[in-house]
């Protein structure tokens, strides 16, 4: 049962998902605190177009993802206050991005399999090169976030007071969305564009309902994220069923348990 852990593709999957889970939990916590969960959803859909465009150009999808999500992250950050009817407008932007994604994939002859792996993730097929990219982006983002941690927390909880105290709230907002973009891009490899919520929002949302202290919440969210991914990969490797299904179920199940407990008490 445990001998599968010796295969290098399983080890790659474990290492990559480890890095993804950490950064996703940290960024997810701030997404929740700042009420930006929909932006995470939006960025992942835009990322689909980027990944598909990269496939068309013969580049690794991760670069297309990074390019598209970072540009749109900056865009959303700058426009966030201006846009009215946000749901509808963002929804229509998403639709446009997805439409271009399908066009790019159609123009590329590989078509269905590529689309499937971008939409639902292919962690078990991750290359050593992508493990490196993931580890590097995740570590750098974590370091910078650590550096920005206190002002970001301050401006998330009380933007007006933070502004008055001289914290560059607006700039931090844009910078934060760049980190969301990076996180979404590397998370897509694990769970795919459509299931981004399970790793980005799921662990943090569950942790927030268990503990109140920000540091403890983030710590717990990281543990949950790693647990979901590793257990998900392990079961998937045993049963030969999709990894993203197990991660989604674990994430949903844990959230449901915590939520129901709250309702009962």
């Amino acid at each position: 049962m445990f001998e599968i852990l010796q295969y290098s593709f399983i080890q790659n999957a474990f290492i990559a998902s480890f890095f993804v889970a950490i950064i996703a939990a940290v960024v997810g916590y701030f997404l929740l605190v700042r009420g930006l969960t929909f932006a995470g959803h939006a960025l992942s859909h835009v990322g689909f177009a980027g990944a598909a465009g990269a496939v068309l150009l013969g580049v690794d999808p991760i670069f297309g993802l990074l390019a598209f999500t970072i540009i749109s992250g900056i865009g959303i950050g700058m426009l966030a206050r201006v846009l009215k009817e946000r749901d509808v407008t963002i929804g229509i932007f998403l639709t446009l991005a997805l439409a271009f994604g399908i066009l790019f994939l159609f123009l590329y002859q590989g078509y269905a399999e590529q689309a499937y792996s971008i939409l639902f993730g292919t962690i078990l097929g991750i290359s050593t090169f992508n493990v490196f990219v993931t580890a590097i982006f995740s570590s750098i983002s974590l370091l910078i976030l650590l550096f920005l941690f206190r002002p970001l927390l301050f401006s998330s909880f009380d933007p007006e007071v933070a502004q008055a105290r001289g914290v560059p709230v607006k700039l931090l907002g844009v910078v934060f969305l760049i980190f969301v973009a990076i996180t979404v891009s590397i998370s897509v490899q694990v769970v795919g564009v459509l299931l981004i919520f399970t790793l980005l929002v799921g662990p943090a949302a569950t942790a927030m309902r268990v503990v109140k202290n920000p540091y403890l919440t983030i710590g717990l969210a990281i543990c949950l994220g790693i647990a979901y991914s590793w257990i998900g990969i392990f079961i998937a490797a045993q049963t030969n069923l999709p990894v993203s299904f197990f991660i989604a179920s674990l994430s949903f199940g844990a959230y449901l348990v915590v939520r129901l407990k709250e309702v009962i008490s």
Partner: protein
Amino acid sequence: MLALLNQQFIQYAFLAGTLISIICAIVGYFVVLRSQAFAAESLSCVGFTGATGAAIFGASSLVGTFFFTILIAFGFGTFGKRIKGRDIEIGMVLSFALGLGVLFLKLYTSNATEAVGILFGSILSVTASDLYLSLGTGTLALIILAVIFRPLLFASIDPEVAEARGVPVVLLGLIFMVLLGITIAEAILVVGVLLVFALLIAPAATAQHITNRPGVSIFLSIALGLLFTWGGMLLGLFFHTPVSFFIAALAAITYLAIIPLYHLISPHFYVSKAHHGREV
């Protein structure tokens, strides 16, 4: 090109496309009015689970989609009084539904092409039975909508006053949700799970930017919906590219173009049209 129009599958596609865009435009008008865009997106994601799950029972994916969207719509209508905004709860349910869809897909269908068909639509492969099913349910939905039109409009614009006047607001909300479920199942047939916004929201949202009058707005959104669908199909056939790409692109670009244009022409019309129950 014209010879292509004599092909049976093209005729089916046009018939289904025409019918579905009309229903979507009318239901979409109310979706925008009631700010239920996110609920619409949830229902379409659930449709993916239905479509892939149908394979287990050997049913057509349209039947599976119908079953699941109506079931969940019923749940939304009964339990969720506040299916608005970007709730974490809805997001989690969505992801789980999609995750389940992936599992069904893996278990009962071997190729990824089918998934792409469900996600991005496959109007050109509509079968006769799909056509009759959507014709029947679509007509039924339109008749119900015509009957409840006035009270629904009242309840959507000003739920509190409507309630006070004795309009059964909650019941109407439930009926509308079920109608939305039917509509989304049909829209998935044309543009797929991921591009439902293109047919359901975009025409209605564009029309509501241009005029405030319900009747005019609904007719305009029907016209826009038909334009997008027909235009998308013709362009798709002509360029041999996915139809749903052109439908979504036409819809999105029209919406994004109309706002600044209209703002430019008549700024005084472009004041906040917010009213009760509408997210700003």
